[in-house]
């Protein structure tokens, strides 16, 4: 059976390696001339409050399905070669890694556009909810439109 990290789209509790995901994209094709990555990390401050940790709830099943659809849509929409998407759902301390979107393409413009589109669209279509722990307790994050 394939190892979990062979899967290009995944939701996991474990941390991930940016280098490893980029390497998988580079190994995929010698036509790759550009790899653009977006890494989302946990900040120590949000809306004026100091953050101790964040956590994510997912709609298991639907979340992975929507992330897979996101990759398929990106491949149709942009002149790119491949996409990898990893999102963590465990408790994450400030500075920790949350999400990685990595896109390979022959040319940089399409890679940049697709990477930005993927993270913007992930926030709109993938059923994940962020909970912040501050000194005053836990609270669910209400996204800005």
């Amino acid at each position, binding site marked *: 059976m394939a190892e979990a990290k062979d899967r290009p789209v995944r939701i996991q509790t474990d941390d991930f390696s940016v280098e490893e995901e980029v390497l998988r994209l580079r190994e995929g094709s010698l036509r790759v001339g550009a790899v653009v990555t977006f890494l*989302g990390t946990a900040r120590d401050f949000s809306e004026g409050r100091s953050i101790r940790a964040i956590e*994510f*709830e*997912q*709609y298991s*099943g*639907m*979340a992975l*399905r929507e992330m897979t659809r996101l990759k398929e849509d990106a491949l149709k929409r942009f002149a790119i070669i491949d996409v990898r998407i990893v*999102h963590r759902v465990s408790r994450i301390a400030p500075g920790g890694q*949350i*999400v990685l979107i990595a896109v390979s393409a022959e040319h940089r413009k399409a890679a940049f556009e697709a990477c930005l589109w993927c*993270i913007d669209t*992930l*926030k*709109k*279509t*993938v*059923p*994940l*909810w*962020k*909970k912040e722990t501050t000194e005053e307790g836990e609270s*669910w*994050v*209400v*996204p800005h439109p």
Partner: protein
Amino acid sequence: MIRVLFFGMLAGKTGCREFSLDMKKPQAPLKEVMEALHARFSGLPRAPYMTAINEEQAEASSVVKDGDEVAIMPPFSGG
């Protein structure tokens, strides 16, 4: 019977993550299911929600059938 899932802050507001709702008919628009849920959970705010039937995005007019899984979801905040 349909299986209703509340996510994120809605689990806190309803005090419930998963709920079994009796359907009075074999199928109904999602709008009617929402009304039944508001009747049952007074803590469920009147707000527009993301909804899904069997893990696929749905809207007020989508048809819910007996045995379906219905998810009531606050705005997503991943990434």
